[in-house]
């Protein structure tokens, strides 16, 4: 029972997270429960292994990319609760008239863009697209077919002719997609 108190959330922390992410105190408490249950070593932070221990995530073709999105560069190999919540905040539904700092359409698109942009240079190259396609289809489709899919996709989306997809081009390509619905999770109470 000794170090339990260090794992409880303080009111100020809840308020701070609420301010930054827009989650309600109840949701924050529930998500904190989840965070601590994933945190096997009781150290207050999560590692990549902690995430990949979730079976549904481990069998997700894009599982590694999703986990990577939690680990910003330069912040080491561990994720604390605030960072955890900031990433999850991207998936809050968009509400009219409410301050949508982290879950605006643009923020959601940025998150999706980061899935493709492996080297974080703000552009999706043909090789990066090919790598993602490999992740999603495994060995079931031949290299030539994948390459042609990648090239076609870039051709359709590229507007300034640099053979790469920038963030603006990405947004334009997903103009007609209901990003709000596809990138929002329905949170309860």
């Amino acid at each position: 029972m000794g170090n339990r108190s260090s794992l409880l959330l303080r009111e100020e922390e809840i308020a701070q997270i609420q301010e930054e992410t827009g989650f309600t105190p109840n949701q924050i408490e529930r998500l904190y429960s989840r965070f601590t249950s994933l945190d096997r070593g009781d150290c207050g932070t999560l590692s990549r292994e902690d995430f990949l221990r979730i079976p549904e995530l481990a069998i997700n073709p894009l599982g590694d990319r999703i986990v990577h999105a939690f680990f910003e560069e330069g912040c080491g190999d561990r994720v604390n609760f605030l960072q955890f919540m900031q990433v999850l905040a991207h998936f809050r539904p968009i509400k009219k008239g409410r301050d949508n700092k982290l879950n605006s359409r643009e923020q959601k698109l940025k998150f999706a863009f980061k899935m493709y942009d492996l080297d974080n240079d703000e552009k999706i190259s043909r090789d990066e697209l090919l790598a993602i396609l490999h992740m999603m289809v495994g060995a079931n489709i031949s290299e030539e077919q994948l390459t042609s899919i990648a090239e076609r996709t870039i051709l359709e989306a590229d507007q300034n002719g640099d053979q790469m997809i920038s963030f603006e081009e990405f947004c334009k390509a997903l103009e007609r997609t209901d990003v709000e619905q596809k990138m929002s999770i329905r949170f309860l109470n």
Partner: protein
Amino acid sequence: MALLWTVVSVSFSIIITPFLMFLLAIIFLASIGKSLGVRRLYVKILLKIFEYGRQHIEIAKKDQRREMVTGSSCEGDGDADADATEDERAAAAASTAAAVERAAGAEAGADAGAGDAAHAPATRRPSPGGGAKAPACNGSAGALLPNGALPNSLSVISREDLILSPVPSLNSANGAAKEGLPRSRSFETLKREFELADCLEFVKAGVEAIIEDEVTLRFEAEELKSWNLLTRTNSWYEFISWRLTVIWVLGFLVRYCFLLPLRVLICFIGVMWLTFCTGIVGYVPEGQFKRWLNYRVNIMCFGILSSALSSVITYHNPENRPKNGICVANHTSPIDVLVLACDNCYALIGQRHGGFLGVLQRALARASPHIWFERSEVKDREAVAKRLRQHVSDPKNPPILIFPEGTCINNTSVMQFKKGSFEVGGVIYPVAIKYDPKFGDAFWNSSRFSMMQYLYMMMTSWAIVCDVWYLPPMYQKEGETAIDFANRVKSCIARQGGLVDLMWDGQLKRMKAKKEWKEAQQEEYSKRLKLE
């Protein structure tokens, strides 16, 4: 000094004699299979106390919230399809439901004395956090499961889109995988070209899994909707009211100072008696008499042991009680064996253990044919299957009890059944066991607690209350594979017990997800892609 000594010895003798008489009475009654109904009465009283406690917590919580100045009484988008009426009634009780002051908590630590390591990890369980909602936010009531149980309404999110499953044809859009319902044909044949938006589906499914997934929570003790006055089921040391603290302290005293010593004694006597009796039965020559004697002795001894845990077991449909063949049940803890063996005599199959379980195993093996094998032999399926077949082929042998999940699950779901026991042929008697978690959580989290810690926790719970349903026997159909048969039996048990039916393998408790499952998902996706 001498006066004090006299007082102590007199009061001791006053207490000890009725105590011993009481003990003898319990054992005697248990051994002849009759019951005074004391345990059921005790359980009824406990229920009333829990109900009172819950309402009390709710009222206290509402008062607290009213005092706090918060504007968000009801989020507009909280059109929760979570069971809001149930939430209303049980919610505030659930949320941070604790009436334990730090002082009382420390008391628990001190009194529990040496070796109370069990409590520290136990209190780590997250407490349910559904907040008290303003009455205006009533959602519709959640659907009841067939046996009247309510599904777990303590979720944070509602999952409406893709949920990945190890068998991709069962990837589903709504809760547990639907048995034998592959995705609709029209979707399969509708191939689309690759779009940049295709990844969004996987990303959302992945993040939803991070927030809440079907599997990892099965290996932790079940969350309770409202507090049951045990320190181990709440992790928020928030003080609610004096009344509740008093009730908790009283409960604590009753459990530790009265029930615990009583139960330990009964358990000790029970194990001795079991060893003694099975030893005697072992000397009787083979035959009808031995089998009859074995049956009687088993039921008597396990009856005594079950009273060591204050168990109140209700058996449903006794006409389906297995007489021979194979009996399969969902597995929550070693106590499952005890629960089932109080009503019928089984042959057991399992790994040879050391320690306490090993003693019991050796005792039982003397009187009747059980199958215990070494760990190394577990891998040798053929040998085990052969012995199974031998046992089952003799109709005079008692039914053999098998837990096809292979590991303990927390009694909220049934995970994949291993096909080994379904290949043997013969008749399968499914049995569903459901514990009532309010009185004591029977789940044995073997990675966290040792057997002794677990028994200690069992003996300091209120009681073990469970329902056992005997289901009608099932046979393998023509042309049905063992795996399909196993799944059929599993869904039958899950439906009866009100448990979630999962396709996932229980071994995920210890092992990582297999690569093949991910590859199966990749294959599934690639089928949907239209290629140039």
